[in-house]
């Protein structure tokens, strides 16, 4: 088990290396000039060239790559071109809202979606099933920002129950923190709930068709007993897999949601950094998100061993 985790950790290195390579090349091979942006509106060509030199952007591509990769290996994500801060501290400043938003969303989504999916599967073909599935397809069909605006309009402007925008740090109190998270999380949760409810239903239906379910019935178990003792433990693996894969969706959604709700998280940092051509920050964020994605899926893979005794590494 320990050996397996170690092996999996080691195997993320090439993946992360490829991510790094893709990101690096993507940034350098597209036409944009961070130096000109930093130099500002009234800068002349020499000033821009000077900044370019300061940033090391005048060096050959391979040298830049080497410089970046070797500093990465030392745990140094570099210094933001634009914010004049280390990328690490920039991200550290922004991580809390994003983490809170993602975690809260995940909790809400799982709490809503899994029971919905189970009900739909148990009552396959019923009105409830159709409603859940209908909602799920709709959830995939409406852009997140539209949902966000609608929620703001109803709950923040008309009813004035919740704040319009912003994020209150948990250090400033639990209640404001929770209040500031509700609307963004609901916005973000919609697509996730849609995905998760649907996958829960599908996995459960699949499991319910297995032979051992028939065996369980042949031993006189009630449908509820069959669900709880036999179907759910077996459906857990695919459901958890989707939770993990959905993290990619969540990360994408964070960018939009943070923009709508003016939450100072990493999602907005991404857009800011991209618009400012802040290479070190863009690189670091993409690496970070990819790393999170890979790690979450690693954790999920490892959790399989707890859920399914057949899976041993």
């Amino acid at each position, binding site marked *: 088990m320990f050996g397996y985790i170690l092996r999996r950790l080691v195997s993320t290195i090439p993946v992360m290396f490829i991510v790094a390579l893709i990101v690096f090349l993507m940034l350098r091979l597209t036409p944009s000039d961070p130096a000109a942006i930093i130099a500002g509106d009234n800068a002349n060509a020499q000033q821009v060239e000077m900044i370019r030199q300061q940033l090391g952007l005048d060096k050959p591509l391979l040298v830049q790559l080497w410089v970046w990769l070797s500093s990465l290996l030392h745990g140094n994500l570099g210094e933001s071109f634009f914010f004049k801060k280390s990328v690490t501290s920039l991200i550290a400043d922004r991580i809390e809202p994003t983490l809170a938003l993602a975690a809260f969303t995940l909790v809400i989504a799982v709490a809503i979606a899994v029971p919905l999916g189970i009900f739909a599967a148990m009552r396959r073909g019923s009105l409830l099933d159709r409603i859940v599935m209908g909602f799920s397809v709709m959830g995939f069909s409406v852009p997140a920002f539209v949902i966000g605006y609608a929620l703001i309009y109803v709950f923040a*402007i008309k009813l004035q129950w919740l704040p319009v925008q*912003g994020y209150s740090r948990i250090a400033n109190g639990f209640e404001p923190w929770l209040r500031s998270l509700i609307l963004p999380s609901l916005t973000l949760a919609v697509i996730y709930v849609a995905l998760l409810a649907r996958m829960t239903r599908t996995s459960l239906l699949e499991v319910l068709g297995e032979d051992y379910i028939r065996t369980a019935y042949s031993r006189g178990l009630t449908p509820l007993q069959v669900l709880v003792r036999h179907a759910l433990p077996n459906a857990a693996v695919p459901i958890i897999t989707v939770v993990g894969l959905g993290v990619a969706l969540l990360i994408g959604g964070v960018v939009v949601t943070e923009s709508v709700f003016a939450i100072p998280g990493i999602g907005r940092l991404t857009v800011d950094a991209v618009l400012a051509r802040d290479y070190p920050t863009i690189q670091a964020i993409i690496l970070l998100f990819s790393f999170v994605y890979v790690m979450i899926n690693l954790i999920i893979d490892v959790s399989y061993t707890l859920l399914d005794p057949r899976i041993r590494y």
Partner: protein
Amino acid sequence: MRFRKFAFAAAVGATIFAGPQSVAPAAAETVLKAVMHSDVKIIDPIWTTAYISRNVGYMIYDTLFALDAKNEVKPQMVDKVDISADKLTYTMTLRDGLLWHDGQPVTAADCVQSLKRWSAKDSLGQKVFTGFVSEMTAPNDKTIVIKLKEPTGLLLFALAKPSSNVPFMMPKRIAETEPGKQISEFIGSGPFVLKRDEWKPGDKIVFTKFDKYKPRPEPASGFAGGKVVKVDRVEWLAIADAQQAINALSAGEIDYMEQPPHDLLPLVKGDSNLKIVVNSGVGQFTFRPNSLVPPFNNPKIKQALWYALNQEDFLKATVGDPAYYKVCKSFYPCGTPLATTAGMDGLLTGNSKKAQELLKEAGYDGTPIVLMASTDLPILTNLGPVAKQLLERAGFKVDMQSMDWQTLVARRNKKDLPNAGGWNAFDTAWVGADILNPVLMAYMNAACDKALFGWPCDEKIEKLRTAFMKAPDAAAQKKIAEEAQLAAIAYTTHIPLGEYSAPMAVRKNIDGIIDAPVPVFWNITKK
């Protein structure tokens, strides 16, 4: 707002919905929350010309001189200034009790070093200090002596320069930073102190009242007079979405919004808790052709632009409400001393027939005009499509390329041909304070390669600008300014597209906002 019980209470827990007053700070500290036109990413107001950095500068730094509401130069940090009879020696004495935020007294040496750094960066500073100043010394802690080679009426104006780059005063050790590098320590002597640890780019920037600041005794007027701070804390929040900012304003989550888009003002008007504050400062939309590459390297073709474009169309499309725009056929802001419509007869009215004729005469060969249009700054977004349509009506072929402002900024420095990554034209906006006279007006710089992007190249304009600096009095200045405008029209350095005012939206309990071209936060009260 009252706590509402039904439906939701059970689901999430009642206290969550208790309303925003429960979030109010414990102490009786007055906090002013504002949304500015942009997020603060760079503070050094000497290093960058970004307006938001300039605005930060006015919070934490102070200036030697300042323009008052009538655009007259008034001493600010300086107590008195003595000008020698030959107008070649200026002796300035600092006020008593000026302190840096770290508690150290402000010295003349600090100011001399600050002026050196500023004059190395700022275009007006360069002109005045390299062209006229022979020596600048600090004989004692209180006294600054500036000696000139020949007289200029612009020295004190330069020291009171209201907009980017503003000659802000910094401690000597900080001002010794190379002008090409950003400073990393932000200590000023201004009325607010930057809370460095709470500055989170993309989130907020926080200022607190500087208790030991000594305001001048005069009442505040423009940038001049006593900078009396009447709130304890000012927070600038980054809310990029303007509608969301207004929503937040309505909900009382913020108090002050610097630049609500004109189209959203009805929302402000419709909310009894909000009010609109109109500043006398104006902005000018500007069309900048690239005089270096074809077809705009041909002045005749550029002449057609004056007939093709129409101020009214641009103003309507970007501002809409006539209360907030003004047709102004002057390079200098209307209502300021130098404003003139000289040479503008029949221009900028959208006379596409005339434009077509001129194009024919000039032999325009149908080369497409690469028009860069920025898409992410609301005030500029609509200029591009209007320009495209007007130019096309006049017979130009237009290839409008949309990009975000940052890309535009990068690309406009390229001298290449448009099909090789260069450009032909773009639209932008200037604040009035930046274009008060021909020397200040960066786009009128026609020094060929040394000029700004667009690289206009005209000896006559340059001579007039130098003459302006040497002009002995206001009447002479006005005459030269008018001549410079005529020359700039003939050459077409750039084209003014009309003026707009940018009202602010604030909550009703906010008062005492100073009418200045730059939003400043002293004198504001929150009840």
